[in-house]
């Protein structure tokens, strides 16, 4: 039997996910990482991306935007500001948001908050990537 560890995804409004997994993949500031049990303790900042939780019975995918993860040998806690399952995502809205963000970036003026526009674009792309599949 493969090693398992506890995975928690907590958002301000609820405990989004809590369960046992064999591996978890997510996107951090330093790039995409996959974490197996008995990882070294690590706290890292998350970038918007798809989190894949590999459970013994199958995979689960969720979109996570902004937050940080605390990795311990027997436990991973992700503190996310926003987290969504694929079926909670409104694909149309995400497409619209993507278009809006792209427009904002294309017509950039001095007043445009580029960081914000790029973040919005990234969020939309992650949502589409997850829900479109």
């Amino acid at each position, binding site marked *: 039997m493969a090693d398992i560890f506890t995975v928690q995804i*907590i*958002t*301000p*409004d*609820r*405990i989004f996910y809590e369960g046992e997994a064999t591996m978890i993949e997510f996107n*951090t*500031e*330093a790039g995409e990482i996959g974490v197996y049990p008995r990882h*070294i*303790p*690590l*706290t*890292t*900042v998350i970038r918007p991306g798809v989190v894949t939780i590999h459970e013994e019975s199958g995979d689960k995918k969720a979109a996570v935007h902004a*937050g*940080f993860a*605390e990795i*311990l*040998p027997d436990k991973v*806690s992700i*503190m996310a*500001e*926003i987290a969504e399952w694929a079926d909670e995502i409104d694909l149309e809205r995400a497409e619209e948001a993507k278009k809006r963000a792209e427009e904002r970036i294309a017509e950039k003026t001095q007043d445009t908050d580029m960081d914000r526009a790029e973040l919005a674009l990234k969020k939309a792309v992650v949502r589409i990537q997850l829900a479109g599949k």
Partner: protein
Amino acid sequence: MASMKDIKRRRSSIQSTQQITKAMKLVSTVKLQKAKTRAEKTTPYFDHMYQTASSILARSGTINHPYLSAGDSPKAAVVVITANRGLAGGYNSNVVKLLTQGDLPKENLEIYAIGTKGKDVLVRRGYDIKEDMSGIIDAPTYADAKAVCDKVLQSFSNGEIGEIYLAYTFFKNTVAHEPRLMKLLPLEFSEEELAEMKQSGQDDKLIMNYEPNEEEALERIIPKYVTSIFYGALVEAVASENAARMQAMDSATSNAEDMISDLSLKYNRARQGSITQELTEIIAGAEAIS
């Protein structure tokens, strides 16, 4: 003695007031239940956030980060969370009292008001209201909390303000809620707390790594920590508001009950008095004729 008609009119007026207070009590009971559930749901996030932030700080006590030391500016920002509506007993005035009777100098304060009731009083007292964001208290979301926090943190890092405080009502349970003035930034932990954190950090016998590095992680995590405290405070304030209103309306209803029974007694006495008087008059009249 007041006439029967007067007493009757007064009694029916109190009765209709009582109906209103009763209805308000029921409404706030329902709202309280909702707010309480929400407040409970935010606890895991907040607890975890506190743990992480404190364990980083415990280990990196020597880090010299702007968030950990007071800014040069003598000014302080206070986010004041009150309600948009009154009729909640001392709920609004207790929060305002934290400022008016506290030891923060009035002229150095910049108020970020959430809740019109508190804002109105502070304006009248001559406080400097920097911004009014009363709209969000009706249905606070994490995004709202973040928007407010970003603004305050921005002016903290620009050096416009040196300290950030939060005035809100802590929700202990349905009957007990206490107004609190809390310092958000710079983060300060007492010696005891630090010792405790170190203790628990050592128990784990783990050395936490930070990516990209401790300072940067701190830079990212502290705003989130502050936002989560702030969001928790908002949610608790809403719960406290409804609990306070429920209590106020409950006692108003029972006071009305007392007044009604008192007036009923007076009314019946007056009625009996007038009947007795009429009878005596008739008997006296009959005797005079015979």
